[in-house]
């Protein structure tokens, strides 16, 4: 697959996943652009991976950590006043997204790769550089936190 083809097919999906993680439309677009730029630099290697879009999402989430480190020395003056669609705003401000963003970084990465990108445990473990068992532990804790934060999930479960 050529990079241009990959970008066209994966960009919206990556953006939506990163947006759920960071909750800010402009920031998410910038982070995903950074992730794709890194993928372009290493495309010969990235194209051989089992899940290149997961690589981009992880690069974007890591770029967010680096961004915080840079910005701590800066004074932010602009508020990115961009109109956000009502539906997007409603989803991003919901309890579930707040709970997701409240997770420790590692748990959030595991949730993103396993549940939003539907990777299996082995692939997730390789991508994050951790043991498969550790992926399971992070996922279990994250699911527990998300579920306990959202009582209506238990109701949904009971009604099935």
């Amino acid at each position, binding site marked *: 697959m050529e990079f*241009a083809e990959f*970008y066209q097919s994966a*960009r*919206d999906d*990556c*953006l*939506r*996943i990163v*947006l*759920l993680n960071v909750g800010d*439309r402009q920031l998410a*677009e910038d982070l*995903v*652009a*950074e992730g*794709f*730029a*890194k993928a*372009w*630099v290493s495309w010969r290697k990235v194209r051989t991976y089992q899940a290149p879009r997961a690589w981009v999402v992880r690069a974007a989430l890591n770029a*967010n*950590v680096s961004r*915080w*480190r840079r910005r*701590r*020395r800066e*004074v932010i003056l602009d508020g990115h006043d961009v109109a956000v*669609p009502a*539906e*997007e705003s409603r*989803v991003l401000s*919901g309890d*579930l*997204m*707040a*709970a997701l*963003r*409240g*997770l*420790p*970084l590692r748990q959030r990465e595991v*949730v993103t790769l396993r*549940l*939003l990108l539907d990777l299996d445990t082995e692939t997730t473990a390789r991508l994050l550089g951790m043991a498969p068992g550790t992926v399971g532990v992070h*996922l*279990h*804790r*994250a*699911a*527990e*936190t*998300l*579920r*306990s*934060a*959202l009582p209506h*999930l*238990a109701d*949904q*479960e009971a009604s099935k």
Partner: protein
Amino acid sequence: MNDDTALGTVRDSLTAAKGTLTETHMNTPLDAIVQRGRAARRRRRLIGLTGTAAVAASAALVVGLTGVTGSAPTNRAGAIRTVAFTLVSNPNGTATLTINNAALVDPTTLQNDLAQDGVPAMVTSGSFCSSNPVPVGFSQVVSFYPATAGNHALPPGVHPHPTITLHPGAMPAGTELSFGVFQLSSGEQQVTFELINASSYACTHTPPPSPANGGSQVEFSPAGSK
């Protein structure tokens, strides 16, 4: 509810949330991505060239330090100042954390900076993690300024810049510090600390109530953080 069912429920909810973002599209053109990639590649090459020249000098420095101290230093000297907090690495191996009451703490930044100072910590926003039973030794690991009697808690408004001194060398093996950052409905920020067992803990999204006397948990709510 078993693990698989709980996971399935969470997965369904997250997938549904993503599914509602169908109108969200990436607007950055491919050309801009490629340009950004080229710039990154140029920077990387430049760093590579500079780094090669610096390797010999830094290796010599590490060897010199190891020779004097017997081991490579785990704490870097100096201070990190962010809008929300200042973290100072002290010569005696402790770290001093001062919270600015006027800004919300970014959990990832604080966690990474604490790690650089040799303080294993898990910093979460909107949630707080704790172990049951709570590991012993909290009072040797954390000291608090201004000092408070009994429950180690600062009520809102007592001090504009609460300061915590952390002694990572006193942390029992297998433990880490849990920091929970909450923005209360009053607009105030609450940061709660506790020593936890790194391999066994649970998290809650409810800000913990003021700790009982003698408890190992410390919390403060800086005033004016609206």
